[in-house]
């Protein structure tokens, strides 16, 4: 069966997270390219990616872009969107009406778990409800009982902070102040002033590494307000370490991660075939999102939306043959023979509940200017 | 502007209106002067033209002034007097006719270049920098001069003593007549080779008007030709060596000041009896 099928990649290429998205997009394209190279997808159907700009914040523009992907370009599935707000908009305005499945690599807002999705929405990133608990338990292990919290003022930051604060207080900790910060602003002195005055042993930063979160840490460290930081998933970035130098020495945090083979395989794959940072935020998730869509279609035996939607859960979860990044060809072979696979991917994908990653987190500490894994939980 | 009443427009919208520079775009001529010897010192010869792409306002109108002379243009409102002045100064493009200054054809020069050639002009409206102080207004008058301007400024202050008093005040805060004095003072600061005044005495009190006329005579006798539009026509024609009556963009009557004053037709129709 020769032919072509298109997958839409809709990410915020312009706007507040424009620096994260190129790697995410490239990562998704990597999966597609890998499949095309094998030539095994549904007996030779070529896949192509169509990119569109979600702008991250403008739901109307995002909806229009997604609409174009679906109705003009005729994509059968969407990998995206990135930010939770536009993801919700695209889901209810485009994906559900048109019956097109979407897998978001990064929309982590807990609210999306309950969105009316007609079983079309999945995500390879875990809901922040879980991350909050993980962060709280790490603090428990570190023996910290009083913290100040600052989060980026959007659904992600707010949702994460809510769940973190609830979990931390339930465990007996005290939160001196929860202050939001806006991203990409010129100055964070006011937030730091308040946080410093409120006190606390550790500053919990639930923001973005190349944006407000970095500014906050920089300012907090410069003024000597805090010396230890706990970092949420959005803060995990090598660039942050490079930019801030030894300021972060001794700080710790958590990031959705998977132990072992998947991540390594992904890093190797990227090293071989592409040039972006395989450890960047949500790059792994992006690869997995695209791979899952392809595999689901392969499983369903046709390159259609309904085939993709119906089989995502199936290929993502056990039982079946575990599949790592770089092994998509093998997976296609198995599927072609009618076998079963359990896609592991770069992030140890395990879709639970309404179709979202269960999420394992890597608890790391920064020592010697590098992220050192403490354990996975 | 602090006071809307002295502003040229009452609208407080500084960011949206452009109170100073509205109106038709200036013609973008960029040419050179060509020698054209002979004739009067300054002449707008058989000028025909209008604003932008609109209808013609001037129809073959000629005005001229020679060294040491005062030429006065009179006529009903809307006759095209100001338009003729602006045409001479290059602020609208002529379809026909030429402007010659001191033996050169300057029709192709831009207004700035005419300033550099020594032409000084006081427009009828918006003729001062409202936000600059009186003193700075005078300095701007002398913008193209590189020599010491203090002496000229003293002369202007002697002529209009009130300006000395208000030298540090923004000119926009002055009364109507005071502004008029600033405007004339500004032009005198240029030390021009020819002075063009559009209704210099509008709104000034009799005493100042007399002095102003005296001074204009003095200036003209010192060799500087003066071309002016006046509605205080009788006083003006009295001191004029040459008078033009413009009607609907055409020369209706031309003669010496006295001739025109004596012409009963002119008196009745244009000078108010």
């Amino acid at each position, binding site marked *: 069966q020769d032919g072509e099928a298109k997958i839409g990649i809709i990410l915020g290429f*312009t706007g*507040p997270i*424009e*620096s994260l998205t190129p790697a995410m997009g490239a990562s998704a394209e990597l999966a597609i390219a890998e499949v095309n190279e094998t030539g095994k997808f549904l007996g030779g159907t070529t896949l192509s990616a169509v990119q569109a700009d979600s702008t991250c914040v403008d739901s109307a523009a995002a909806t229009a872009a997604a609409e174009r992907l679906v109705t003009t370009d005729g994509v059968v599935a969407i990998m995206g969107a990135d930010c939770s707000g536009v993801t919700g908009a695209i889901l209810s305005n485009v994906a559900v009406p048109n019956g097109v499945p979407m897998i978001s690599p990064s929309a982590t807002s807990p609210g999306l778990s309950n969105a009316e999705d007609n079983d079309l929405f999945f995500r390879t990133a875990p809901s922040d409800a879980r991350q909050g608990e993980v962060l709280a338990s790490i603090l428990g292990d570190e023996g910290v009982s009083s913290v100040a919290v600052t989060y980026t003022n959007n659904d992600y930051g707010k949702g994460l902070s809510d769940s973190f604060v609830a979990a931390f207080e339930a465990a007996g900790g005290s939160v001196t*102040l929860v*202050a*939001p*910060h806006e991203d*990409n*602003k*010129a*100055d964070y*002195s*006011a*937030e730091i*002033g*308040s946080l*410093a*005055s*409120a*006190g606390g042993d550790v500053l919990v930063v639930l923001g973005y590494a*190349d944006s407000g979160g*970095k500014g906050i840490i*920089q*300012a907090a460290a*410069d*003024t*000597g*307000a805090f010396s230890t930081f706990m970092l949420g998933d959005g803060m995990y970035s090598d*660039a942050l370490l*490079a*930019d801030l130098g030894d300021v972060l020495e001794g700080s710790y945090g958590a990031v959705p991660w998977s132990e072992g083979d998947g991540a390594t395989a992904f890093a190797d794959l990227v090293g071989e075939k592409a040039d972006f940072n395989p450890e960047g935020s949500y790059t792994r998730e992006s690869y997995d999102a695209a791979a899952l869509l392809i595999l689901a279609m392969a499983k369903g035996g046709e390159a259609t939306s309904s085939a993709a939607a119906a089989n995502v859960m199936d290929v993502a979860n056990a039982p079946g043959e575990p599949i790592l990044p770089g092994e998509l060809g093998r997976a296609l072979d198995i599927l072609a023979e009618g076998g079963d696979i359990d896609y592991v991917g770069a992030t140890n994908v395990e879709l639970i509940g309404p179709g979202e990653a269960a999420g394992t987190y890597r608890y790391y500490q920064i020592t010697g200017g590098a992220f050192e894994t403490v354990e996975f939980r | *502007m602090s006071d809307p009443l002295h502003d040229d427009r009452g609208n407080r919208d*500084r*960011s*949206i*209106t*452009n109170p*100073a*520079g*509205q*109106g038709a*775009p*200036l013609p*973008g001529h960029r040419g050179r002067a060509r020698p054209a010897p002979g004739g009067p010192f300054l002449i707008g010869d058989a000028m025909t033209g209008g604003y932008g792409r609109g209808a013609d306002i001037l129809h073959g109108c000629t005005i001229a002034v020679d060294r040491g002379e005062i030429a006065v243009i009179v006529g009903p409102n809307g006759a095209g007097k100001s338009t003729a002045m602006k045409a001479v*100064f290059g*602020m609208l493009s002529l379809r026909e006719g030429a402007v010659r200054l001191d033996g050169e054809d300057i029709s192709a020069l831009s*207004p*700035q270049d005419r*300033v*550099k050639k020594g032409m000084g002009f006081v*427009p009828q409206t918006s003729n*001062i*920098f409202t*936000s*600059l102080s009186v003193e*700075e207004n005078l300095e*701007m008058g002398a*913008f193209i001069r590189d020599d010491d301007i203090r002496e000229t400024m003293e002369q202007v202050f002697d002529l209009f003593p009130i300006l000395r008093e208000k030298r540090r005040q923004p000119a926009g805060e002055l009364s109507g007549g005071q502004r008029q004095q600033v405007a004339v003072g500004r032009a005198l600061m*240029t030390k021009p080779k020819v002075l063009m005044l559009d209704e210099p005495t509008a709104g000034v009190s009799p005493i100042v008007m007399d002095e102003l006329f005296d001074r204009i005579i003095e200036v003209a006798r010192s060799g500087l030709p003066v071309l002016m539009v006046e509605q205080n026509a009788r006083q003006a024609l009295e001191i004029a060596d040459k008078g033009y009556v413009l009607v609907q963009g055409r020369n209706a009557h031309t003669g010496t000041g006295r001739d025109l004053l004596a012409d009963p037709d002119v008196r009745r129709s244009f000078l108010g009896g």
Partner: protein
Amino acid sequence: MDFLNAFVALSNFVLIPAIAYGSQLALGALGVTLVYGILRFSNFAHGDTMAFGTMVAILATWGLQAAGVTLGPLPTALLAIPVGILGCAALVLATDRLVYRFYRAQKAVPVILVIVSMGVMFIYNGITRFIIGPDDQAFADGARFLINARQFREMTGLAEPLAIRSTQAITLVTALIVVAALFWFLNRTKTGKSMRAYSDNEDLALLSGIDPERVVRVTWIIVAGLATIAGVLYGLDKTYKPFTYFQLLLPIFAAAIVGGLGSPLGAIAGGFVIAFSEVGLTYAWKKVLTYLLPGPLEPDGLVQLLATDYKFAVSFMILVIVLLFRPTGLFRGKSV
């Protein structure tokens, strides 16, 4: 001792950051105010002009660093500023030639120019990202602090830290020098006066022999200079990221307007008003009061006038209030 601690805490978290942020805003606002004052429109492209100038300076800095040139304790980028200004001036002059001049000749009302400047903003935006990308760029070197928190504590033995970044000091000094120079230039030099005359009445300026195009050129060059200086200092102090520069636009405008549009002194004052209201009004006084008050009176709340959630709203509220009582800004702006 407690009193000293209280004062140090206040300085560290309110006074010093607000002063530094204030001068950064002020430098930006100067550029906006100059365009407004002389060319008569609100230039939305100013944020991206800053981003562009800074980008050129950054590229030059990298070049210098690669060639091993440094300024010792001062950031190398200071050496690169002239290059940045040149690049930026070339850009804005080209823009003026290709874009703005047409509308000037048309005598378009300023709001058209405002919208046009938005178009220019989009284009600069793209150009900058094409060249250097949307990411953060680090280019600071030299000594980061005049005094850092740890040193200060060791030196004085106080419980509270105090940190002064060298960039903060440089920014303040630069802002003061620049505003003085600008003030002098506009009010005392012939070119400066001719610029004000031009802004007041273009036609009459023409009649006085002032070359309008020259005025415009000089204005743009100064604006390019201001934008680049402001951008580089800001980038040194915080970080360089094109999007942040765009975001700076709003507070910069607010500063220019609170101070009185068109007034250089106003721009400075406006910058500080905005900065102090953002930092000061949301400051939690708990720490300071704990030092100052005797034990039993110590507050248990944060003693915060307003939550930081409303930080931006607060600065705008201040702005609105200032405008209600002084409707044309603190320094009664108009033309320069």
